[in-house]
């Protein structure tokens, strides 16, 4: 029972972690809380199903559908920066204006999905059908293994990009001092747009994976995951990739334990209560370092 809860929690946690990574990337670069971020999670899942209906309900259809969903979500996200958020930045709008703008974008996407697909729950066919196996007392499905593997690969890839590539160096430079980054020859807007692209792609991918895991699509899946990702990001220490991953796992596991042992009605309440306590006691997050500002 305990072990089973842990495994289920880790699976949900993986999804939160993936969504959180994208969220925290944008926060890291721009200090912008992107409310539209979880919308790509939902949009990705819906688009993938649409593409599968067009291409075929098999593994190939799923793979192509996933790629299509990732590309579409990434492009939309990059465009929102080019056409809206970037403009606000250029005009020197307050950070909170950009935040409200992302709320507007989120409202448009979430409701466009309701418009396009209707608000009833839809089915997401699992094309793999690989079954499950047992580890001791707990049952693990192969789908869970796939999710974990993909998630780990994505995390490694992103860590590599941020730590080891020129693109990543540009990102880090922008996050620390945008003007100086420009002066080094970093093409700031281009890098920010790509960051939006990557962040939304990862979010879309996790939407696809979790949609297939639960075999359903719901119009509230974005809002459900959105505040969790926000919480996970802060819990891990915002702006830190490993922090995002740990934050996501902690929230996922915590949630599944509360649901298993206390009451599923109060599941989210207790998760948030723990979050509040952690943030009050350890403001820099679990992994975040205390930043000493030089005055």
């Amino acid at each position, binding site marked *: 029972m305990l072990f089973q809860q842990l495994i289920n929690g880790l699976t949900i946690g993986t999804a939160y972690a993936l969504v959180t990574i994208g969220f925290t990337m944008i926060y890291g670069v721009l200090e912008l*809380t992107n*409310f539209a971020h979880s919308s790509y999670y939902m949009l990705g899942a819906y688009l993938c199903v649409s593409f599968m209906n067009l291409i075929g309900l098999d593994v190939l259809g799923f793979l192509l559908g996933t790629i299509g969903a990732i590309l579409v979500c990434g492009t939309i996200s990059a465009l929102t920066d080019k*056409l*809206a958020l970037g*403009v*606000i930045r250029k*005009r*020197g*709008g*307050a950070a*909170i*204006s*950009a*935040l*409200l*703008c992302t*709320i*507007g*974008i*989120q*409202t*448009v*996407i*979430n*409701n*466009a999905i*309701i*418009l396009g697909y209707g608000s009833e729950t839809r089915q997401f066919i699992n094309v793999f059908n690989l079954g499950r196996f047992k580890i001791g007392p707990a049952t693990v499905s192969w789908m869970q293994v796939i999710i974990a593997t993909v998630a780990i690969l994505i995390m490694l890839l992103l860590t590599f990009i941020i730590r080891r590539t020129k693109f990543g160096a540009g990102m880090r430079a922008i996050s620390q001092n945008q003007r100086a980054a420009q002066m080094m020859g970093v093409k700031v807007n281009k890098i920010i747009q790509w960051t939006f692209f990557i962040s939304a792609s990862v979010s879309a991918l996790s939407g696809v994976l979790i949609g297939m895991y639960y075999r359903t699509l719901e119009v509230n899946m974005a*809002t459900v995951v959105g*505040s969790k990702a*926000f*919480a996970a990001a*802060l819990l891990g220490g*915002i702006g830190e990739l490993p922090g995002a991953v740990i934050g996501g796992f902690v929230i996922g596991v915590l949630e599944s334990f509360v649901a298993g042992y206390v*009451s599923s*009605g*109060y599941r*989210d*309440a207790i998760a*948030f*209560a723990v*979050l*509040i306590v952690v*943030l*009050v006691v350890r*403001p820099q997050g679990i992994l975040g370092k205390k930043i000493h500002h030089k*005055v």
Partner: protein
Amino acid sequence: MKKLFSKSIKRIIEKWAVNEWKVAFSCLIIALALPIVLNTRYLLSVMTICCVNSILAVSLNMLTGYLGITSLGHAAFYGLGAYTAAILGTRFELNIIVTLPAGMIIAGIAAFLLGLAAIRAPSRHLAIITLGFCEIVKIVELNWFSFTGGANGIHSVPRISLLGWDLSGKYAKYYLALFLLILTISTISLIMHSKIGRAIYSIRDNEIAAESMGVNVFSYKLFVFTFSAMFAGLAGAFYAHHFSYVSPLSFTFEQSIVLLSMVILGGIGSMPGTIIGAIILSLLPELLRDFTTWRQVIYGAIIVILMVARPSGMLGKYNFKHIRQQVKYSKLLTKNENKPLEKMTG
């Protein structure tokens, strides 16, 4: 063309800034007289909602605009006020003389306790802490069935009456809401124009500097957080009587976001801006009623377009006090153009 447009806007804003009191007074007269024209039940109800939302936005603006703390949980205090009034009204048949202050007090106590624990946290954490608090309150409202009615909410909250008078008519409700709004605006304005107000601004502008000048940052933050929540509780208590029905779904984190949008859209830190933002975002859903399905999409798109067009909100860039000084200064200059400088200063 564009220049001409921005010039005329500038002139209007200048006029407005110079005659701020007159403008405010005229607005009040209009608000008082409006029911003569807009006299259907529907229109009056929309206007009442505008007042309620304005109370919420103005109080949130005190926290977010004046003090600089972004709250995503204002709806929680709104909901606490509403549930307090609904429970007191249905179980003990108390009227608004008791329920409105009670709503304020309960919301205030909740904010005080939350603030006591968390207000020291950095501002980006407060956003999620208030969000989390809002979710917790909603979940409790949903699950504590015996007390809150769960998802069904609480029905038949008593109609508004005061000292035996029935104030539940469409006109009476509007004027009561307007009165509460004016009460909120004047209380907050009074505070912001006092010494306390200056301390609050100094915290927003530079917390460390304020602290080093002897401003007790923690107490002021706690005070503003509590105070702003109390007015949200007031709005909630009125809301419960107005609709005679409360449900947890009215006080979600999404509602907090709508409230925050009102503040930002109008121009963060500007009282008239906040009210304009509140009125626009209260009317917009009504205006878009005919587009049922497209409504939310258009709503979102309008927010995006407005923010791109005016990144500081509609009035956010204008500091009326500043403008007044500038106008005064330029008038002095033109008057004394030919006189030597000594005469002007001495």
